[in-house]
């Protein structure tokens, strides 16, 4: 149990000196640190980017090595295309089943007969980005590598409907297409 004495002892800071046990010097050190950080921020620079005025793909920001998203960052989705430029998705609805936020809505339809290589594709593929929690389960559930989460940071919009991405938008949702906007000088 968490309340057992041993456990508590173990969780205490390792120091056993009086100063450690009084805890106040550590508090003071902590306060000193935060104050340093505080003034450091005031005088130096912020770790954040003025998004969306400054694009996160802005090269200059990347050079400064801050504000550039980690490639493993889970941002907006993209529907992957195959060699012929058609969606890879076969509308298996597994992402829909895996989605904990219920933000994916798919309606399958048979493929045109000339496709040949598969039988079904999505007629409607919608992701409600406002509901999405960017957990990446859809990506994991996808058996065809048809849906991916890109590092693309979401673009602010002024209406909710704009945040419901349809199939065409998801197919074109290339992170490289997110053009950086510099703040006007």
């Amino acid at each position, binding site marked *: 149990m*968490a*309340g057992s004495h041993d456990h*508590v002892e173990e*969780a205490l800071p390792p120091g056993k000196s009086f100063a450690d046990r009084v805890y*106040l010097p550590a*508090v003071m050190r*902590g*306060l000193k*640190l*935060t*104050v340093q*950080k*505080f003034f*450091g*921020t*005031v005088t130096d620079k*912020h*770790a*954040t980017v*003025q998004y969306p005025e400054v694009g996160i793909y802005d090269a200059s920001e990347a050079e400064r090595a801050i504000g550039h998203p980690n490639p493993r960052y889970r941002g907006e989705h993209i529907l992957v295309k195959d060699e012929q430029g058609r969606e890879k998705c076969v509308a298996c609805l597994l992402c829909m089943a895996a989605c904990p936020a219920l933000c994916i809505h798919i309606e399958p339809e048979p493929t045109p007969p000339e496709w040949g290589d598969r039988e079904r594709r999505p007629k409607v593929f919608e992701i409600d980005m406002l509901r999405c929690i960017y957990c990446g389960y859809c990506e994991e559930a996808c058996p065809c590598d048809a849906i991916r989460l890109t590092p693309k940071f979401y673009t602010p919009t002024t209406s909710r409907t704009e945040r419901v991405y349809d199939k065409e938008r998801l197919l074109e949702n290339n992170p490289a297409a997110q053009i950086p906007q510099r703040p006007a*000088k």
Partner: protein
Amino acid sequence: MTEFVLTPGMIGFAATILKALFVIGMALQIVPGCIYFERKIAAYVQHRIGPNRVNFTIGTLRYLMPESMRDVIPEGLARVKLIPGSLQPLADAIKLAFKEEVIPEKADKLLYNLGPMLTFIPVGTALCFLPFGATLIVPDANLFGIEIQRTVIEMSVSNVVPGMLMLLAVSSLGVYGIACGGWGSGSKYPLMAAVRAAAQMVSYEVPLGIAFLIALASVGSLDGQEIVRNQAETWHGFGWLVFRQPLAALIFLVAMFAENNRLPFDLPEAEPELVGGYHTEYTGLKFAIFFLGEYCAMILMCGLFTTLFLGGWSLGPIEPVEVFGSTIEPLITAEGGILNVLLSVAVFTVKMLSVLLLQLWIRWTLPRFRYDQLMDLGWKVLTPLALANLAITAILISKFPNFTFFA
């Protein structure tokens, strides 16, 4: 023509209303500021920017100018922000005010609605007993045919003699609001938060009260003004209890954090464990009132700490007369004079805000305690220490009644 006479009663009555408005007004003004600074400090400590969107710009000033002169301000300059994000608290307030009120289906309606009120009312009441400035003396005068009788106005909304005791009594009622809100929400997380809050506040009430007692005992008065004066008059103005009773001051400070549910003792609101704490199920104005009550409680406690341990409104060794010089009319600068009082209020506010700043500072520095650690600290460390301190103080007072260390 009968001369209109302003009796001390009438003046006092009017002054009380004005003081009440002032206190509430101040509190309500400090809260948004506090929120803004809290966010800003948090951001800066974390190398972020913080709120910077909602604010006036220099360009806003154009709207105050005649149309022909608007071009005076160049476009570049017009974009410069005046205190970036400064209007964020206003935006928050508007948002909260217009948010839909949602009452959970399984909530106990009465308790649910009572919760925020019970949080705010005791704090508001307690603020009345806080001495926030030097005593104002309205001299006998005849202004524009109105006879004014000499009136002594204490700079606290209510100047009952055991004011500090009242304050202590009333401020501890705040926990009822939290308990009501937590229970009334009909949800398990608020309930757990409420239980935690109740236990925590009851626990820390003990060292807080004892530290309080030490301060009172050291001064020998329950009157707030008397406590401040005592500190100002001892040790050439340096007789602040923080120097005379440092341990008690520390205990009070720590207990104060716990009473206010502030980090590192914010277990009733621990987000990772309890979603939002006791106000999880609240939205809109009820949530705002909870929020307000919480911040007012912070202001109250900081004021109390200022009063008890930091010499209240007194400027320390400096006499206000020295500040203003003797050139100004004694009515204004002398003790009880209006400038003197204003200065003292300013001093009090600055001290109080400093303590408030400390609270914010601590919040972004220390991690949250575990609940058992919290209880250990309260009962096993602070309470015995406070008791010991009290005992020693009591013995010293009884043995050396005139020992200057205390008096």
